[in-house]
Structure formats: C-alpha cells, structure tokens
C-alpha cells in the first residue's frame, strides 16, 4: 500500500521548506509507510504549520532579538576571568566577552588560538611539541641568564644547554639573531661553553644599559605575540592552544591543519578568512559565551545580530560608531547616544526625518508602523458611491 521512495521524493521535492524539515519529513514518512492520499494530507498540514511558524511581515524581529539576548545578559556574572576547560589558558568570559563581541573590538582582551594539526602530526606527541616550540615566542630570558659586566663593558649571555635542546635552538643561531637585531658585535665565547658576549659599539654606560634592556625584547624563535602554547589531547588528537593570536603566521607553519585552525579574535578572522567566516565566528563566539554561563538563547537571535553586523561587507559594531550610528532617522540616532550632538547637527544641516521607523514615532507620539499599526484600512463609502451613480 505504501508508496515508493521515488514518489515521496517527487511529491515533497518542490516544497519551499528548509532542508532539515524536508529530511525529517521524508524520514518519518518512510518509516511509517503511508499511502499517497495520506501523504498529500501530511504535506498540506506541514505547509500550514510551517507558514504559521514563520515570522509575519511587519514583525519587529530586531526588538525581539534585543530583548532575548538582553534579558539573559542581565543574569550573566560580572566575573571577568575564568579558566574555561582549556588547560591553564585564561580567557575572558561572561558579560565582558559578550560586550567585546558586539562592540567588534579590534583585539579581544584575551586573544587565543586553537591550532589543529595535520594527520601524522596530530597523534604524535613529540611532533606536536615541536610545532608548539615553532609557534611559541622564545626570548632570551627563556634560554639564558644575561649579566652586565661593567668591568669589561659588555653583556655576558650564559645559555642554558637544557633549554637550548628543549627548544631546539643552536648557540650560533642565537648569536646571529642577536647580532642582526641589535646591530652590535656579538661573539660566541671561545673560553666558556654556551656563552655569548655582546659588545656595544661605543663603550658607554648608557649604551650598555640600553642593550641590556633591548636584548630581552628580541624574539629568537617562534611567532612574536604568542606568549604560551598549551598542548591538549582531544580524543585521539593533540591540539594546540595559544595565548596570543597571530593567525596569519601560524597558517604558514608546516604540520598545521589550516582548515580547522581558528582564533577568538573576530577582527583577525575577518582579515584572513573574509566576511562570511567572521559572521560564523560571531555566532559561534556569542552562543558559546552564553552557553558557558548556562543561558539558552535561540540561535536565530544571534544569527540576526551577526547578519546585521556583517551585511555591509565589514564587521561593524552595534553601537554609536556602527549600526545605531548609521540609522537614517535623526530621532532614532538621538535616542541612542549623544542626543544633543545629533539634534544640533541635524538642525544645522536641515535634515528631514520621514518618521518611518519605530523610535521616531514613539518620540513624536504616533502609532508605530508595526503589526496592526502598519495596516491601512481603505473603506468605500457606500453613500458616496451610490450618490454618484
């Protein structure tokens, strides 16, 4: 009695339903086994329900979204720092993080990268460790003790052999790099093992002290700006988590799986991966932040926010310098922030407010153009009609 898969496909194929709904519908119909007539009725009901669930025209989705995100926001903790599962790496969470996301800050207060590794590297702890050292910035303080020798007017760098082996750096490389960056004579000592002598160009105290300061800022190995790398085993794979974020550089390191590597810095994602990735990243970061606090916000609200933030091809903040500041209406802008400036500027320019939006109409005390307020009734006057005939 029940109909074949091909018939079901052809019957539901042309429906304007989302893919997930179609898939569920098909699965359920196949499981139960229905007749053609039954399926027709099912389709009819599903379509009616779908239409009922859709947002109606003139519905204020923005306001609904704002409230749906804002209300849970009031319950978020003000606690800024938290160790979020990831070993020892401190990430901003809660309200401060959410504010950071919607403000589209150039750099978050705690940038962090998740670096996935390619096959072969991902299951080998030693290889993973090696990549970690490639990424983590190595400074002279990690490798050596630097002492200022005032008698001979030079800096003595005593390298720790254990650290050199661990970080896979050679003494000559360190000397070369130091010479390059400092622009002074750097010699590997012949008398003592693993010792480097840095000689200032002029034998002055000022010069020597400056050198002693500057030597600590040089990145000998790794990527500048990555303070720490933590290796963690997720299931079968080793994944690297970094404190500090320099996505562009990390993508060039061999063994890094570019397709699964990302950062919590949305501005950086936008620059490297483009606007669509930035949109996805806003959705991911915002919903993760809310979920971590135990708050459930429907993803559609967050999607709306990130769509608005990215609709002009760049990441704009929700606020005075972004979405709210670009509204066409003078009143709507004035209602948000810096009221007097907006009104004054508009007055000087002779701007006209068409009173099309919600905010403007509330300010002047008119019904807003939403729901029933947006429908105009046009009635024919029967008396007048008959009188004319």
């Amino acid at each position: 009695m029940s109909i074949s898969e091909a018939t079901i496909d052809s019957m539901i194929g042309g429906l304007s339903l989302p893919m997930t709904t179609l898939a569920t519908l098909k699965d359920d119909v196949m499981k139960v086994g229905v007749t053609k007539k039954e399926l027709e009725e099912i389709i009819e009901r599903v379509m009616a329900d779908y239409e009922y669930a859709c947002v109606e025209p003139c519905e204020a989705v923005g306001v609904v979204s704002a409230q749906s995100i804002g209300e849970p926001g009031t319950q978020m903790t003000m606690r800024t720092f938290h160790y979020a599962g990831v070993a020892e790496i401190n990430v901003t969470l809660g309200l401060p993080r959410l504010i950071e996301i919607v403000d589209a800050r150039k750099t978050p207060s705690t940038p962090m990268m998740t670096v996935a590794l390619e096959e072969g590297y991902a299951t080998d702890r030693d290889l993973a460790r090696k990549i970690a050292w490639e990424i983590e910035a190595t400074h002279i303080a990690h490798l050596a003790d630097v002492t200022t020798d005032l008698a001979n007017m030079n800096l003595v760098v005593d390298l720790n052999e254990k650290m050199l082996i661990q970080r896979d750096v050679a003494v000559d490389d360190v000397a070369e790099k130091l010479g390059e960056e400092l622009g002074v004579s750097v010699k590997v000592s012949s008398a003592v093992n693993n010792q480097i002598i840095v000689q200032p160009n002029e034998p002055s105290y000022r010069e020597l002290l400056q050198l002693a300061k500057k030597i600590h800022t040089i990145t000998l190995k790794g990527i500048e700006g990555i303070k720490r790398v933590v290796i963690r085993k997720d299931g079968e794979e080793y994944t690297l988590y970094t404190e500090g974020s320099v996505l562009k550089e990390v993508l060039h390191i061999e063994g890094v799986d570019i397709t699964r590597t990302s950062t919590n810095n949305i501005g950086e994602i936008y620059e490297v991966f483009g606007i669509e990735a930035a949109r996805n990243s806003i959705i991911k970061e915002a919903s993760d932040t809310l979920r971590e606090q135990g708050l459930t916000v429907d993803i559609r609200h967050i999607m709306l926010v990130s769509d608005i933030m990215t609709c002009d091809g760049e990441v704009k903040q929700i606020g005075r310098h972004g979405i709210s500041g670009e509204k066409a209406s003078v009143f709507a802008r004035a209602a948000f922030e810096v009221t007097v400036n907006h009104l004054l500027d508009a007055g000087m320019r002779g701007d006209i407010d068409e009173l099309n939006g919600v905010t403007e109409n509330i300010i002047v005390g008119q019904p807003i153009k939403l729901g029933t307020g947006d429908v105009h009734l046009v009635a024919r006057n029967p008396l007048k009609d008959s009188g004319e005939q």
Partner: protein
Amino acid sequence: MSKFSLLDHELIPNHEIMDDDELRTVLKHFNVEREQLPKIKVTDPIAQEIDAMPGDVVKITRKSQTAGEALYYRYVME
C-alpha cells in the same frame, strides 16, 4: 606549505559568482536591485580567491544550524 583553498576552511561557506540568468531570477524573487543586496568587499580574501569583480553577485551556500542549508547573496563592491 601545501597549496590549499581558503574555501576548505570549516568557518568558510562555499562562495560562487552567479551567472546572469540565475541572478535575474533571484532579484525578481526578492524584488530588489543588485545594489540592495548585502555587500562583500572586493578586497575580501574569499572574493579574491574566486576572482570576483565589483558588480558581480556572489552566491553563498551557508550551512545553517536551523535550516540545514541556506542561500545568501552578496554584491561585490569596491
């Protein structure tokens, strides 16, 4: 580094430049001009990857958590 396409990244949905016929149907369906669509900059890494020119419209096939798959259109601007 092995050659890889940015489009393989898990955060990046598929982008393709639309041909005129398809574009006309879409614009008619939404009853808009192409300039009224959301924008993508010509300097965007993905726009450069697929060689989009200003004036093109890019069709984006997003993976959506609610709908499974969702289509989005962006107008390429300078």
